[in-house]
């Protein structure tokens, strides 16, 4: 029997012991003694969330296909186990070998959302790794961060030795090799970090110095040694089809959030919505060859036994072989107990036809993401979805038997007016009215329109990186306007409106565009008990507010402040390949309400053509 780090007494008295035992189908087993490098991959949230993340499965597979490398996993212990581990002095361990995380060469932490930052400190502390990079020795793993939040790693700068900027499939082999050579040559830890800094895409925060102006903005952000480059270039996979992909993904014993085969059909998005960070940092759009996808679908379903397969991309309707892959999946797998799920599809005749084949119309609902309530504001954010398209799509769906619609909006977008806010209720009403245009004998019951709003957080490397964010009070005021307007609507009984508290949004705003000075707030909040901030049942806003107070950090400086066009941002040392001029141009066009065509209609010269692949070269093949 595999050894376990936790005794039965603990495993049998906590929730979901299966989170901590490993041993899942397709888990990689290697002899830790026989490898050169032990890499511990961490998703700093609970197992069920972390195991649902595609990126982790891709990198796990990639590392374990390398000779001499053993990649294992660790997730945040839930609060019940957290307490037991502290009380009984049990160090945090990896799932595969159940060995302490501290024994590893690398601890790689994926940064998917800002509200997991206190969980990172929990991982470090339970692993007995010093929280601050500067306090670590060769007795500690190299702590490296990657993922979308690494595009502004500065609030975490003190806690990480390295950051990987860009897609993980490209330079990890170089980094691991550099490490091997460094260790064999008895390099100091600092010497290794300096060598790592010379690998494209690797950022070593301790090798940079930041100076500030009197008003708190950055005066200079410069390398403090010749080894560190002035800018760090984002890593991009140029050929998706041949890129590494897990044919044998791990199959958890317990039900995880994404309990299915996930087929990544394409990376990036051609649409260029101005609020969307993913739409910028995953440029250019790169499609995976449809024949490769068919092969992967077979293998992955066979190797996991999952009963569902889902397509993954930022905008599946823009995948040019969508019809072919969808029809293939339906022909091959439907009727064999395999469900097919198709998220992020635009509502049109094709998608309605497909959806009616793969799901029960009576039970499913239709989803639109207009993001803004008026055409004017949709033009500002460059959301290429017109009211006519929404209403026609909904009408066609109603005729097809659907009667439930979900709508997603954002509040607090740049230039937003009361008219835009009320437009959310008006658009919801128009959709409901469309339903009642269908003759009564052809309707299936009542229509239900559920509108949800989230609060807009400006993100780095988007045209809105300069935009001031609304305050908590403004956000809640806007939500009240929508709620009030909804109640005035003729069909208000068919409309439902959901919104959230704004506390978490404010924090997300600080962390998203924060700098190095914010890290002490994170540490202070963690020390006072902040953990699992992404979980509403665990989130405690007062801890954070006290931490800002104690550390003398002003929330408004990071959130609601108007930023100057030539301000130096904490993330400006990263070169994503998208030019700052393009972002500025888009910010100006946004304020003028001018739409920018998508990448396939017309190239807007964002700069990513330099990577030599994807949509930028589609017509030249």
């Amino acid at each position, binding site marked *: 029997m*595999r050894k376990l780090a936790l005794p039965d007494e603990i495993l049998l008295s906590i929730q979901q012991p299966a989170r901590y035992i490993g*041993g899942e189908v397709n888990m990689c087993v290697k002899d830790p003694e026989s490898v050169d490098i032990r890499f511990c991959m961490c998703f700093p949230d609970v197992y069920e969330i972390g195991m649902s993340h595609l990126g982790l499965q891709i990198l796990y597979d990639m590392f374990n296909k390398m000779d001499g490398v053993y990649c294992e996993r660790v997730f945040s212990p839930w609060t019940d186990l957290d307490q037991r581990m502290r009380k009984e002095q049990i160090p945090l361990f990896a799932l595969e070998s159940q060995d302490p995380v501290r024994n590893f060469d690398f601890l790689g932490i994926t940064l998917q959302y800002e509200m997991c930052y206190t969980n990172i400190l929990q991982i470090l502390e339970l692993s007995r790794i010093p929280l601050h990079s500067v306090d670590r020795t060769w007795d500690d793993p190299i702590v490296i961060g990657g993922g979308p939040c690494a595009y502004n790693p500065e609030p975490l700068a003190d806690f990480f030795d390295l950051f990987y900027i860009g897609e993980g499939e490209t330079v990890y082999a170089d980094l691991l090799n550099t490490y091997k050579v460094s260790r064999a040559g008895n390099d100091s830890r600092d010497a290794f970090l300096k060598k790592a800094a010379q690998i494209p895409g690797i950022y070593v925060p301790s090798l940079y110095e930041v100076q500030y102006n009197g008003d708190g903005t950055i005066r200079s952000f410069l390398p403090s040694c010749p080894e560190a480059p002035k800018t760090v270039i984002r890593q991009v996979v140029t050929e998706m089809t041949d890129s590494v992909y897990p044919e044998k993904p791990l199959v958890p014993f317990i039900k995880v959030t994404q309990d299915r085969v996930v087929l990544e059909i394409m990376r990036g998005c051609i649409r260029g919505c101005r609020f969307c960070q993913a739409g910028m940092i995953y440029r250019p759009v790169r499609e995976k060859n449809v024949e490769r996808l068919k092969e992967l679908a077979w293998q992955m379903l066979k190797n996991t*036994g999952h*009963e569902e397969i889902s397509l993954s991309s930022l905008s599946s309707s823009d995948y040019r072989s969508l019809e072919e892959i969808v029809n293939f999946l339906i022909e091959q797998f439907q009727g064999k107990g395999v469900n097919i799920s198709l998220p992020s599809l635009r509502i049109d005749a094709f998608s309605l036809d497909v959806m009616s084949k793969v799901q029960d119309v009576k039970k499913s609902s239709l989803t639109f993401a207009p993001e803004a309530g008026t055409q004017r504001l949709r033009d500002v954010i460059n959301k290429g979805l017109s009211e006519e398209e929404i209403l026609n799509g909904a009408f066609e769906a109603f005729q097809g038997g659907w009667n439930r619609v979900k709508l997603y909006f954002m509040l607090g977008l740049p230039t937003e007016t009361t008219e835009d806010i009320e437009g959310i209720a008006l658009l919801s009403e128009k959709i409901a009215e469309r339903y009642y245009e269908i003759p009564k004998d052809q309707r299936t019951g009542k229509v239900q329109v559920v509108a949800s709003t989230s609060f807009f957080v400006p993100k780095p490397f988007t045209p809105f990186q300069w935009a001031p964010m609304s305050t908590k009070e403004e956000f809640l005021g806007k939500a009240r306007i929508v709620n009030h307007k909804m109640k005035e609507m003729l069909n208000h009984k068919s409309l439902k409106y959901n919104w959230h508290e704004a506390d978490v949004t404010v924090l997300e705003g600080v962390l998203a565009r924060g700098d190095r000075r914010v890290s002490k707030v994170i540490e202070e909040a963690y020390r006072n008990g902040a953990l699992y901030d992404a979980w509403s049942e665990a989130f405690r806003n007062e801890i954070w507010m006290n931490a800002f107070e104690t550390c003398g950090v002003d929330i408004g400086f990071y959130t609601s402040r108007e930023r100057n066009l030539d301000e130096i941002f904490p993330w400006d040392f990263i070169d994503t390949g998208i030019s700052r001029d393009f972002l500025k141009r888009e910010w100006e066009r946004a304020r003028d309400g001018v739409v920018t065509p998508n990448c396939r209609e017309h190239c807007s010269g964002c700069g990513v053509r330099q990577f030599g692949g994807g949509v930028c070269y589609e017509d030249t093949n």
Partner: protein
Amino acid sequence: MKIRIKFSKQGTMKFIGHLDSMRYFQKAMRRADVDIRYSEGFSPHQIMSFAAPLGVGLTGSGEYLDIEVHSSDSSRVMVKRLNEVMAEGVEILSFRRLPDGAANAMSLVAACDYTVRLREGYDNCGFWRDFFPGLNDFIQNGNLEIVKKTKKGEKQMDLRPFVYEYRLLEDRGMFLKLSAGSSVNIKPELLLEAYCLAKGQEYQPFAFLINREEVYADTGSEGSHQFTKLEAFGEEIE
């Protein structure tokens, strides 16, 4: 075609609860390409049922599940195919065809065999050192009336008629054959708890390692028990 599968669930698999074990087997059927039957409708599910749920923390050496298939290779081949896709800790022991119209495993369950041992660290001190001889004596001569907590409240019950067999194991442990199934289901923990209570000792759930050895139907008649292993209802597919 109805199939009865016998399997063992050992090691770290004891932390996987009943619902997750069901999901585990559903996925395993697909990995092994078993030609299993699905129910009709928009969300078809596999025709599969388990004999008796095994509590989290317990291991089993003779667990059962029934499935329905359209077609099947020989028992030998199917056992091999399934074992190739199992996680560590689960082993398929037999794969047998049931006669048409056979009752499902769950409805047949009448008794289970258990072995109970003490976990390391509990076995050499005080009360625990002579735990099993004491328990043996208790089952033989003691008062086995307990108060069983049910959904409707508390209920007085005498365990004795439902302890079908008991004996000391040579390597410090106890064998128990207890009534199981839908009419009277006696978990071994009930007996252990009753003994601790009678001795004025606090019951310690983590002190015991419990393995369910086998599951039986009762094929006897007129008040006489005749316990038959569930796998005996099926026959090997050649």
